[in-house]
């Protein structure tokens, strides 16, 4: 059984007991435990089931590479699936559940898949769910959906908060092991600003468990002193619980800081995503031990040798009473020694190398441990936990020589440097034959904006597994990074470390090397996705020679651990089957993040009220108080209508329109874009921007204008007011202000940079309120002031500055409704007060606000176009019969050349007309005018489409605007338009001006 030892546990605070629950059962652990170590201490070895076969699984590892021990962590708003027990720090009150089983971890119905292993080979899904086609929808997809996905999806809103943080440093060091610390010191001594991040809560990495000496002192003491030294350096920042998640272009680094995963009751953000720019990056990310591929290597109790050692040394936990060690290298002997020294049994060390190990092997033998060279495991016995191993010769086919009872197996297939962060931004790898692993190729480092390398690798991440070599490499890496960042590297020599030389490892990709199909089908490569040696071999046989194809066909390395354990073993298996050297098979692409990071940390602050910026006018609060129904227009929220109690939106819109047409109402038009264009060349510039002539506009007057892009298509419209000889104020659409301002600046900065014109976007300087209706002037007169707003004093399409009431105002006599209308701009700070004053003055006329829908309907009644309704990026002014707004006198304007193209000048283009349904009904939005016959795709031919369609309260009938083939020549003709229910509606082509054709109402 796995249990807590009386001694040991260097990371534990045994004075502080913590309570937690797993699958509803209560357990205790200590401060300093991980969830995995605490479960093991309570003899809870089985922590989940595998994804495909639902095989019982326990932890394989003790850190970030863990594929099996994933849990649903927390409850309600703190629930999160797929949390690795090995990297989850224990806290009081932690609750979690195991995953991928039903009804329980111990008894799981899905485990029947396990007995069907033979029938779920590589590519099973592709091969099986093919025919009959109809079965997809009703049989296959429901089955796949039922079983797809790891863990449960959270149901509740995340109760935690998250944030981003921007940091700028000279050197980022990733990894707080002895190499990372050494590199940080070497870089820091140069004076460079250094940020060192470590994903766990502890410094020193593997060296704290593995031991050794640096500068004549035990490595643990050396690390402690180093940390103290770094903490005292002002230019060095140390952050633990922070993982280097990704390395990106131009020195961009993501640091994923788990601020209070370990202390969920404290206030503050749960995770912080550091968005770092570093001149240089040092990856001191260490190495990960590889499993060995033998039958039954996934049975709970079979673990990486280093993990079993970690649990003993770091957490005082024994995984088993009797642990068989199986290895192809010397490092695993450390585990045997550590276990033995903890008072536990090691029945045998199986060393696959015929020549056996070096000094460490001697040390093990001296402790009385039996060592068998050239031997391996034929198969592991047991179901929910290891009960024994069958020993065989590594060189053979698996004939059992002896069976040994044990309850744990410590395996080591060698070590692979963690090259992920080196590789994220294009760093290349080289195959190290001696150590049988890929390590970074320093001559092919990722390059930055200056074309120079910006990532350096240090220590075991660089393939220097030996402490002495690793520390020296890290010291050099830190110096090199500081130098590359522009600092003078320290002259201090690297510390000296001594370690017993080890015998060479020998690659073992299958155990025994001649294992037959019966063994291979139980030899796991990828634990999380249940990929075995047999699957990769099958893929190769079926022609999947590319490692990227094999990955996708077998799902090798596609799980949430992204193949940290399986990658090298998998591609070595593939290479073996293809008879190709491993480096020519290559690796799959390493992509960020290194381990999964929370969605919350990616979103950062962008949730709830600040998910997206909302733009509010100075009168927004009033609209809100009135319970206006808002609609989004760009980032603005504009009142669509102001429904009164018991009123539908349609009824509200009708009321607002009739009030406007019959008396007076008001509109918050503050969102309209307002851009000042000033300079001696302003007129010339606007002549280029608008299709019509603006330079001839007189000060004090307004002119409606159209803007096209160089394709000739309409992009915006609005009223231009000439303020003085040099100055114009251009109104744009609500959504267009920033875009059109940018458009103006683009032409001024990049094409006509010698023209003397300045622009300024003053959209938000003003609150602009339209007072609209036959009584509009009376309301203004009541407000008083010094402005003559009489029919003659301020004529249609004129503007004036002055006082209205107490307010500094600019009044434009323009109309988008066909009514007598004044749009009045006051400084935004006075906007709300002005709105209130109008409401008060208009009370006797029943004044009320109207929303954007009333605005839309009223402009459609008048046949006025709306950018975005009548235009869609393919419409030219000529399509809308707006030739009157296109100057013929101008040699050039933006879009003019494009409009000369044959297709633009073609009489076959659809033209804007009005439509009146014969039955008075409202045509559906987006309806098409249907024509005879079908096109090549068997679709009904069309001859036009509706651009705007409304119920007109003024006319009490449906009205619409449409672009129709030869439309202007077909007045009076009846066409058919499709409806959503498949039927059609008949409509007569009419003039798009439905109301007050002569414009008498606005000219009073």
């Amino acid at each position, binding site marked *: 059984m796995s249990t807590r030892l009386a001694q040991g546990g260097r990371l534990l605070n045994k004075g502080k007991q913590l309570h937690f629950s797993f699958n509803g059962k209560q357990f205790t652990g200590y401060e300093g435990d991980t969830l995995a170590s605490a479960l093991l201490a309570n003899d809870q070895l089985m922590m989940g089931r595998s994804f495909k076969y639902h095989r019982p699984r326990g932890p394989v590892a003790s850190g970030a590479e863990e594929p099996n021990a994933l849990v649903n962590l927390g409850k309600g708003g703190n629930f999160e699936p797929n949390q690795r027990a090995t990297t989850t720090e224990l806290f009081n009150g932690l609750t979690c559940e195991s995953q991928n089983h039903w009804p329980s971890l111990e008894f799981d119905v899905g485990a029947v898949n396990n007995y069907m292993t033979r029938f779920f080979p590589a590519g099973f899904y592709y091969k099986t769910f093919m025919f009959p086609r109809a079965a997809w929808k009703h049989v296959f997809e429901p089955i796949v959906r039922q079983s797809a996905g790891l863990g449960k999806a959270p149901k509740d809103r995340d109760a935690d908060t998250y944030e981003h943080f921007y940091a700028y440093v000279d050197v980022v060091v990733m990894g707080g092991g002895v190499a990372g610390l050494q590199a940080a010191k070497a870089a820091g001594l140069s004076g460079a600003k250094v940020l060192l991040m470590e994903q766990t809560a502890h410094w020193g990495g593997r060296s704290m468990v593995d031991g050794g000496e640096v500068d004549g002192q035990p490595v643990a003491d050396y690390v402690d002193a180093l940390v103290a030294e770094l903490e005292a350096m002002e230019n060095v920042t140390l952050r633990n619980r922070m993982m280097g998640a990704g390395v*990106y272009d131009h020195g*961009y680094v993501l640091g994923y800081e788990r601020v209070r995963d370990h202390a969920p009751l404290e206030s503050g953000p749960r995770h912080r995503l550091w968005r770092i720019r570093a001149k240089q990056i040092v990856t001191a990310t260490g190495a990960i031990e590889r499993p060995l591929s033998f039958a039954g290597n996934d049975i709970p109790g079979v673990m990486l040798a280093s993990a079993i050692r970690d649990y003993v040394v770091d957490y005082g936990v024994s995984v088993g009473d009797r642990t068989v060690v199986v290895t192809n290298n010397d490092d695993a002997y450390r585990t045997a020694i550590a276990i033995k020294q903890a008072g536990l049994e090691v029945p045998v060390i199986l060393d696959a190398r015929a020549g056996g190990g070096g000094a460490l092997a001697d040390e093990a033998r001296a402790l009385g441990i039996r060592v068998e060279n050239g031997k391996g495991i034929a198969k592991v016995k047991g179901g929910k936990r290891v009960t024994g191993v069958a020993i065989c010769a590594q060189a053979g086919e698996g004939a059992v020589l002896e069976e040994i009872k044990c309850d744990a197996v410590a395996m080591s297939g060698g070590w692979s440097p963690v090259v992920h962060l080196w590789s994220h931004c294009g760093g290349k790898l080289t195959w190290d034959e001696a150590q049988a692993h890929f390590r970074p190729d320093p001559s092919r480092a990722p390059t*930055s*904006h*200056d074309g120079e390398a910006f990532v350096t690798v240090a220590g075991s991440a660089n393939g220097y597994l030996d402490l002495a070599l690793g520390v020296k490499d890290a010291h050099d890496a830190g110096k090199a990074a500081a130098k590359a960042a522009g600092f003078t590297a320290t002259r201090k020599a690297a510390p000296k470390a001594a370690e017993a030389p080890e015998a060479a490892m020998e690659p073992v990709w299958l155990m025994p090397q001649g294992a037959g199909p019966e063994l291979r089908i139980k030899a796991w490569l990828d634990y999380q996705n249940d990929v075995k040696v047999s699957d990769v071999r099958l893929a190769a046989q079926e022609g999947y020679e590319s490692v990227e194809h094999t990955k996708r066909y077998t799902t090798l390395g596609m799980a949430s651990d992204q193949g940290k354990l399986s990658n090298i073993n998998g591609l070595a298996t593939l290479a073996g089957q293809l008879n190709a050297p491993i480096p020519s098979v290559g690796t799959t692409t390493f992509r960020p993040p290194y381990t999964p990071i929370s969605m919350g940390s990616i979103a950062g602050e962008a949730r709830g009220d600040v998910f997206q910026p909302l733009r509010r006018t100075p009168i927004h609060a009033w609209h809100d108080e009135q319970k206006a129904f808002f609609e989004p227009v760009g980032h603005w929220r504009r009142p669509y209508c102001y429904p009164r109690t018991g009123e539908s939106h349609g009824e509200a819109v009708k009321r607002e329109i009739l009030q406007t047409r019959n008396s007076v109402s008001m509109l918050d038009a503050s969102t309209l874009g307002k851009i000042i264009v000033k300079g001696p060349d302003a007129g010339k510039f606007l002549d280029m921007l608008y299709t019509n002539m603006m330079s001839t506009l007189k000060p004090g007057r307004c002119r409606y204008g159209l803007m096209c892009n160089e394709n000739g298509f309409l992009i915006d419209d609005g009223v231009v007011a000439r303020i003085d000889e040099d100055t114009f104020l251009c109104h744009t659409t609500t959504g267009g202000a920033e875009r059109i301002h940018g458009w103006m*600046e683009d032409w001024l900065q*990049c*094409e006509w940079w010698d023209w003397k014109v300045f622009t300024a976007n003053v959209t938000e300087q003003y609150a602009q309120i339209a007072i609209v209706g036959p009584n509009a002037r009376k309301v203004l007169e009541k407000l008083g002031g010094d402005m003559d707003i009489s029919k003659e004093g301020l004529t249609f399409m004129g503007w004036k500055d002055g006082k209205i009431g107490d307010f500094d105002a600019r009044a434009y006599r323009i109309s988008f409704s066909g009514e007598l209308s004044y749009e009045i701009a006051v400084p935004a700070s006075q906007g709300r007060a002005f709105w209130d004053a109008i409401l008060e003055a208009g009370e006797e006329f029943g004044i009320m606000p109207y929303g954007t829908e009333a605005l839309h309907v009223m402009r459609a009644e008048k046949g006025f176009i709306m950018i975005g309704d009548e235009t869609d990026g393919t419409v030219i002014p000529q399509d809308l019969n707006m030739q009157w707004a296109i100057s013929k006198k101008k040699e050039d304007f933006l879009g003019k*050349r*494009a409009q000369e193209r044959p297709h633009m000048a073609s009489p076959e283009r659809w033209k804007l007309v009005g439509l009146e349904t014969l039955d008075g009904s409202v045509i559906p939005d987006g309806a098409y005018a249907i024509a005879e016959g079908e096109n090549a795709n068997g679709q009904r031919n069309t001859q036009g489409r509706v651009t705007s369609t409304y119920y007109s309260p003024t006319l009490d009938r449906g009205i619409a605007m449409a672009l129709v083939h030869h439309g202007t020549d077909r007045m009076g003709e009846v066409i058919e338009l499709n409806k959503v229910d498949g039927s059609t509606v008949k409509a007569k082509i009419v003039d798009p001006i439905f109301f007050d054709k002569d414009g008498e109402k606005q000219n009073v």
Partner: protein
Amino acid sequence: MLTLQCPYCGVWAEETELHAEGEAHLKRFGPGSEDEAFEGYLFMRENPKGVHFERWRHSNGCGKFFHAARSTTTLEVFGTYSAQTLEPPQEIKDKISAKYPGWSWREFA
């Protein structure tokens, strides 16, 4: 994510402060131009693997448009320069030549 130095305000701006504005050094053809020239101006764009010239705008910053010369494969930036020019500065062309001898891009080399 790129970092480009805005030649107008001097800020080393990360991409989130910037807005990509398409290809650089387009020559405008207006009314009276030949169809082919106009088509080239409106539609024909370079899509090189390697040296490229682009327009960017420091939109969340000083608001200025500027030019950038960079490699689309390595993301090496050879330089950023004024928008008020019809061709890349010699200094930047030299820098590119040092890295990619014999390069050419439209009429520049």
